[in-house]
């Protein structure tokens, strides 16, 4: 098996077995979204209005959840040293880890998002666009988060710093993700321009993220 695939499969297996991955992220997403109606009250019109934003915020927080352990777990048991001495370039190794993170954390959120959209009274014609924007946008959250995870790897309790570092960088993703969904419901702008920019943000972060994360790791481990 090639090293890239081996690392990705190992990370996915670890995420699924230790329960810190797929299920936990999805449950967290569910709980965040489910308590919002209690906070804003039983106003269906209001819920429908803010629903897409709540779902995007929930997805953002849920994908942050497992990022904290992305590199620290490997740092603490010395795995990161070995990952760096492999034949696989570190940039590709962190990409493999990011893909595993997205498949076990981001993808489940996309899959359950139509269900949660119903909880928030999001219009039925917006459910498709919502899932689509999450599918296109959550990889950006993972790859931007990757940089923060790599920067905070040697810090104890780096989780908080991670959130502070990563959340501001995700603002563009949030803006265009929510704009695309809302435009699908009401207009006035069309769905595709915002969605296209969202895709562009994802592609850019997939390119920049691994290089920045690998540089941060090399520097941080010295």
């Amino acid at each position, binding site marked *: *098996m*090639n*090293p890239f695939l*081996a*690392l990705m499969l*190992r990370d996915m*297996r*670890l995420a699924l*077995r*230790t329960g810190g991955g797929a299920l936990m992220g999805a449950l967290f997403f569910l709980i965040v979204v489910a308590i919002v109606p209690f906070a804003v009250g039983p106003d269906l019109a209001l819920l429908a209005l803010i629903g897409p934003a709540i779902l995007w915020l929930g997805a953002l927080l849920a994908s942050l959840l497992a990022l904290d352990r992305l590199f620290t777990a*490997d740092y*603490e*048991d*010395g*795995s990161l*040293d*070995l*990952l*760096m*001495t*492999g*034949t*696989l370039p570190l940039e590709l190794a962190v990409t493999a880890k990011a893909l595993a993170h997205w498949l076990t954390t981001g993808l489940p959120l996309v899959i359950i998002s139509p269900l949660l959209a119903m909880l928030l009274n999001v219009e039925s014609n917006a459910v498709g666009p919502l899932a689509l924007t999450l599918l296109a946008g959550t990889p950006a959250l993972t790859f931007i988060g990757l940089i923060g995870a790599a920067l905070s790897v040697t810090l104890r309790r780096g989780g908080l710093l991670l959130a502070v570092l990563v959340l501001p960088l995700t603002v563009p993703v949030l803006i265009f993700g929510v704009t695309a969904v809302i435009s699908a419901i009401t207009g006035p702008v069309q769905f595709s321009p915002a969605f296209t920019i969202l895709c562009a943000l994802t592609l850019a972060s997939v390119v920049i993220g691994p290089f920045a994360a690998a540089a941060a790791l090399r520097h941080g*481990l*010295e």
Partner: protein
Amino acid sequence: MRLVAEAIACQRGGREVFTGLSFAVDKGEALLVTGRNGTGKSSLLRIIAGLVRLAGGRLSLQGGDAESNIAEQAHYVGHQDPVKGALSVAENLTFWSAYLGGKPDVRTALKAVGLDALADLPAGYLSAGQRRRLSIARLVAIKRPLWLLDEPTTALDAQAQKALAGLMKKHLRSGGLIVAASHGPIGISGVKQLRLGRA
């Protein structure tokens, strides 16, 4: 194959750990690095493994694979054992074998360190010594010419230390190189000594 260090220097956190250090290790030779705490034994191994940047001097592996760097031709066994508790013993070794490249012979490697009976046990249940043996199994599973061992005998019982010494002798006979950092003897004779720091 020959590992040559020419006047290498090491800095950690802005502090000079050692400077002007030169040594050479030929094939079939072992170098035992000794010295008091904080004299840079671990740092030296991490420099060779490419995990710490060289602050000065030159480090080369002559007669090795010109396509790959020293780290890719070396096994590094550090203070920690990269073992995931949620994976089984065999899965841990299979992963590292696949990641570090090469044809993994997991069963034989586990047998060599006496863990074959525990292959399907989740590695979280292993003791410290067993985790260390699992790390050592990596050296057997994948062939790499240079072994960098940082306190390899830690947590190992007498029998496992003997087994490790046997593996090291076999590695040296087949033309391998070993650089080990240790406070005590590592169980093989005829090793070169390198003493770091002022006595």
